[in-house]
């Protein structure tokens, strides 16, 4: 009994730990969303929230409905599998109301260089250039038709 009395201060310290643990559990219960862990290690309700967000991309089928000339040209060239909105940006609003939202034409001098600037990491067969040496600032679209960039006379794009 005496030993218990002389160890009383240790129980106080232990009590402090228990109190801290209870406070931790209370805060945890308050701040962790109820749907956390419903499907995995994330907030389950996030799926519905993300699903409710407006769609920003129209999809190439929507573009091809109106822009048949460009779609035809693209289907015959090396860019056949590049999606329209990969270059033109997300344009669901334009597809919904073409008159109200008019997309800006991309600057080919900047846009093309994003993929076609030469680096050691790209496969050798991929057309890549040093833009400064290749065109000296002249927009790529001056010579290349972006939807089908191969230049027939030159025997294809370099």
């Amino acid at each position, binding site marked *: 009994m005496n030993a218990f009395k002389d160890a*009383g201060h*240790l129980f106080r310290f232990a009590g402090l730990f228990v109190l801290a643990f209870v406070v*931790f559990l209370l805060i945890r219960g308050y701040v*962790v969303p109820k749907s956390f862990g419903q499907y995995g*290690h994330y907030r389950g309700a996030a799926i519905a929230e993300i699903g409710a967000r407006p769609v920003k991309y129209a999809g190439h089928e929507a573009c091809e409905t109106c822009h048949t000339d460009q779609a035809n040209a693209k289907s015959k060239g090396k860019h056949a599998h590049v999606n329209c909105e990969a270059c033109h940006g997300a344009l669901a609003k334009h597809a919904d109301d073409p008159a109200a939202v008019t997309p800006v034409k991309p600057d080919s001098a900047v846009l093309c260089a994003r993929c076609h600037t030469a680096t*050691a*990491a790209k496969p050798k067969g991929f057309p890549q250039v040093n833009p400064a040496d290749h065109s000296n600032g002249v927009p790529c679209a001056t010579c290349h038709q972006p939807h089908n960039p191969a230049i027939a006379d030159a025997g294809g794009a370099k």
Partner: protein
Amino acid sequence: MTGVEGFMYPNEVGLQWSVLIVLYPFITGLVAGAFILASLERVFHVEAVKPTYRLALLTALAFLIVAPLPLQLHLGHPERSPEMYFTPHSTSAMAMFGYVYLWYLMAVLVFEIWLDYRKDIVLLSQSSKGLLKVMYKVMSLGSDNISPRALHIDEKVGWIVTLIGIPSAFLLHGYVGFIFGSIKANPWWSSPLMPVVFIFSAMVSGIAGVMLIYMATTKLRGRTIDMRCVDTIAMYLFYIFIIDFSLEMLDLIHRIYEADESFRSLDFMVHTQLYIPHIVIQIILGTVTPLVLLFVTQVVKLPEQIRKRIYVISGCLALMGIFAMRWNVVIGGQLFSKSFLGYTTYKMTLVTREGSLVAIGLSILPLFILWALIKLLPPWATEPPTHTAAAD
């Protein structure tokens, strides 16, 4: 894209982990090392280091309080960091480490300091006045039982806590090494030896740190430095330094012999960009020089004054070397490309959230906390008069 040589992938050009991430393992290392030094007296009964026992515990606490700050400053959203505790993922080393940190802080360090100081706290709560009295009352948790039996229980429990504290200190710093060593995508880091190297380098830095703090505080108080104590600490520093250096060399030899696909790239980096911080500062100045100096003190009988100077120089060089080791691990691991075809550079900013001024501030902050802790809980209050009476 300044400072890029050869080819870097776009996400490798700018370093993700800055000098603050260098500071983090350095500070936690000091904590673990200081605690191991304290355990020498408590568990292994090395009586000679007794004058540093309490100081080592307070040093460990001061640095442990600061340890998470570099991480918080590095985070884009520090307010989200508690989520690591609320919803920890079992595959996250950092989340698990968060619990190790809390365990070490509260269940080991604070508990051990409280047990060791309880008698002083109770006596101080009776002798002090005003706000200090209230503080000591709160710290005593309202218990003023300092009967011999109660203190005997404290002693026994304290011993058990220190015993648990040793693997906890190893776990604390082993985890920091684990965080780097387990990144298999980075050949500079990925090594199972990393946690072990980190633990021993932590012990070196912690022991050197406490030795320097002990010498400085004793000098500032105008007391005599207990040479038996610093000689013993220096001896342990020397031995642990040898183990640490051997492990680092073992890792290096293993890498050279294995010579995997990353070797040529890493070897080039060590001979160019990392030459000064790795070869010169870490190995020559920060490891070999203090090892030679400490070796001399072990084999040659030198006068007290010379020994003191050698210990100060060795301690400072050891701390510099361990900091360089952390730098070379953290920064060095981000300087080369995963393509092994190029290198980037790290330029430390001055006045930014992750700049050098903040890093210097965070390095000094634990010393201010230690000063406050010493004021609140004087580590030399119960020193026998023979330690304190003689003037230097």
